[in-house]
């Protein structure tokens, strides 16, 4: 185990508490930079989705994880960012301008949503954000002069500094990763400064936060605005990546996927957003793998085990039918949500911390270290 001897207040606020961090993150940075050169273009394209989901994950962590305001409406914020992009592009607005406008406009709308949300708690807030998202979805479908309704909008390739950045080029990949890194750094800075502490205070006890001089309403609105703005930036990248957007892309299911990102990653740390995003995005390639390779493998296995050729073919067919069934992705998602809440409530990052501790303490690790105390429901009605 590593013990840090702190001699300065600086030790507690620096970005990298010791040199080990520099090595780890340096290596990670190099890997990210090198990825387009040794990964297939399909995987690089998945990594772009990872970065977009991770950006939204960071946004949700700030709002839900740190301020304690649940939201099932982030697909709507993403949509607003995406449509702002597509709309402004038509008038020849340059990329940096509409990129920032997407963030700004979504942030303003987030603040507007934040005001009504001030008086709402817990479950009411969840329902209110769902309603907001459904209304936005309907507006996108009906406001045809701007959004072209259900026909959707095309999104042109990014033009920047005289060059084009196609959606599957390494350039676009670097752009997304750059935005992700910037967003993460900004979030870290925010969370280690007074605003971040105010967010956590509001999450844990609004009454105490008030009596410590925190303007609870203002900070809740701030949290909504920041979270929405970051999601708006992600929306701009999302629109470019898909090159075509229509209202049915921004459904409740997408909002749930975003919540899954932080749920699976671990809702108490920014690491969780990235780990969760990787996990969620990789469900798709996994399904493809399931569809393409597994049925054949199962058939071969059953041949090896002595089943007749006819029987093996039947097994292959039925397992292929299962793997390509329509609802499989939904079923897997549903299962993942339940499984993580039940068995890994701290998410992937929590698991990583446990593994790390296991090796640091070997052979003295106790399971009980992370065991949550039995808790009982006290009414959340009275707050």
């Amino acid at each position, binding site marked *: 185990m590593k013990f840090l001897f702190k001699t300065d*207040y600086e030790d*507690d*606020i620096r970005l990298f508490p010791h040199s080990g961090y520099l090595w780890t993150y340096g290596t990670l940075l190099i890997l990210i930079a090198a990825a387009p050169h040794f990964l297939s273009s399909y995987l690089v394209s998945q990594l772009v989705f990872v970065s977009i989901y991770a950006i939204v994950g960071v946004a949700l962590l700030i709002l839900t994880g740190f301020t304690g305001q649940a939201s099932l409406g982030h697909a709507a914020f993403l949509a607003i960012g995406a449509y702002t992009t597509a709309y402004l592009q038509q008038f020849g607005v340059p990329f940096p301008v509409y990129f920032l406008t997407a963030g700004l406009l979504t942030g303003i709308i987030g603040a507007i949503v934040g005001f009504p949300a001030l008086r709402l708690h817990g479950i009411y807030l969840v329902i209110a954000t769902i309603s907001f998202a459904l209304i936005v979805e309907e507006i996108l479908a009906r406001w045809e002069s701007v959004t072209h309704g259900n026909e959707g909008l095309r999104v042109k390739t990014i033009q920047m500094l005289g060059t084009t950045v196609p959606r599957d080029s390494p350039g676009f990949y670097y752009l997304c990763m750059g935005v992700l890194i910037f967003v993460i750094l900004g979030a870290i800075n925010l969370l280690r*400064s*007074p605003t971040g502490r105010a967010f*956590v205070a509001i999450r844990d006890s609004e009454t105490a*936060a*008030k009596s*410590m*001089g925190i303007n609870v309403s203002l900070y809740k609105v701030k949290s909504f605005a920041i979270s929405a703005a970051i999601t708006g930036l992600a929306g701009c990248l999302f629109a470019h990546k898909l090159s075509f957007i229509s209202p049915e892309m921004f459904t409740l299911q997408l909002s749930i996927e975003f919540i899954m990102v932080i749920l699976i990653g671990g809702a108490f740390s920014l690491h969780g957003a990235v780990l969760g995003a990787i996990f969620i995005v990789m469900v798709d390639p996994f399904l493809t793998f399931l569809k393409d390779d597994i049925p054949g493998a199962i058939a071969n296995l059953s041949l090896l085990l002595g089943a007749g050729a006819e029987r093996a073919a039947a097994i292959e067919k039925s397992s292929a039918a299962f793997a390509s069934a329509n609802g499989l992705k939904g079923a897997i998602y549903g299962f993942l949500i339940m499984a993580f809440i039940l068995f890994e409530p701290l998410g992937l990052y929590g698991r990583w911390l446990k593994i790390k501790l296991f090796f640091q303490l070997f052979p003295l690790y106790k399971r009980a270290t992370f065991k949550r105390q039995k808790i009982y429901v006290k009414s959340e009605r009275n707050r």
Partner: protein
Amino acid sequence: MSYFRAENLSLHFGGLKAVDSVNFALEKGEILSIIGPNGAGKSSIFNLISRLYNPTSGRLFFEDQEITQEPPYSIAKLGIARTFQNIELFENASVLNNLLVGRHRHCTSSLWQEILYMPSVRRDEKIHRHKVEQVIEFLDLEPYRDRVISGLPYGVRKVVELARALCTEPKLILLDEPSSGLNVEETTDMSFWIRDMQSELGITVLMVEHDMSLVSRVSDRVIALNYGKVLAMGQPAEVQSHPDVVAAYLGA
């Protein structure tokens, strides 16, 4: 004019008069205790002062300024801090972060400065940290600095809450039953700290307390309350022997 004043303060919940035309005043630098049986309206007075409740009628003044209409968060900005009867700490944060939240009223950085973590933010953070360390030293909290609240014993939480209130650098501090749930030794510590707060830091103290020995040890004056009304006011010994107070406690 007195330092803090409550004029005809009333709080009614429907027909129940939790606080009924209460008048009292605090001089700068004194320790005033409010005593009374359960349900006498002691905590309600605190909640009125920290503006969590709106008074039905009456006015509050602090440093010659009326605070009856101020929002709750600006009460702390004016220099009034409080603790809670049933501990309201930020459960999932470390002691250090809890105390740093107490510094909130002195934070001036803007959102953009914080996102970019400008040198000014870094400098301010160190100043806040220094002030927090002073409070930690004052209340002997060094061993718990990096511990998360949810894992701390009750007695320590009580002290952390006091520390958090002190971190706001208050002029007036409201202590809601500072000794409830503490053992004899911890209560003794608490009485020394309350005295030190007054003499070393020059803080005016208003406290609600049941433990009469603590009350008579630290208080300059005592107010006895029952059914929302003031029964008696004066020196601790005087009030304790006042016939109405004795009657209220014995239920006669």
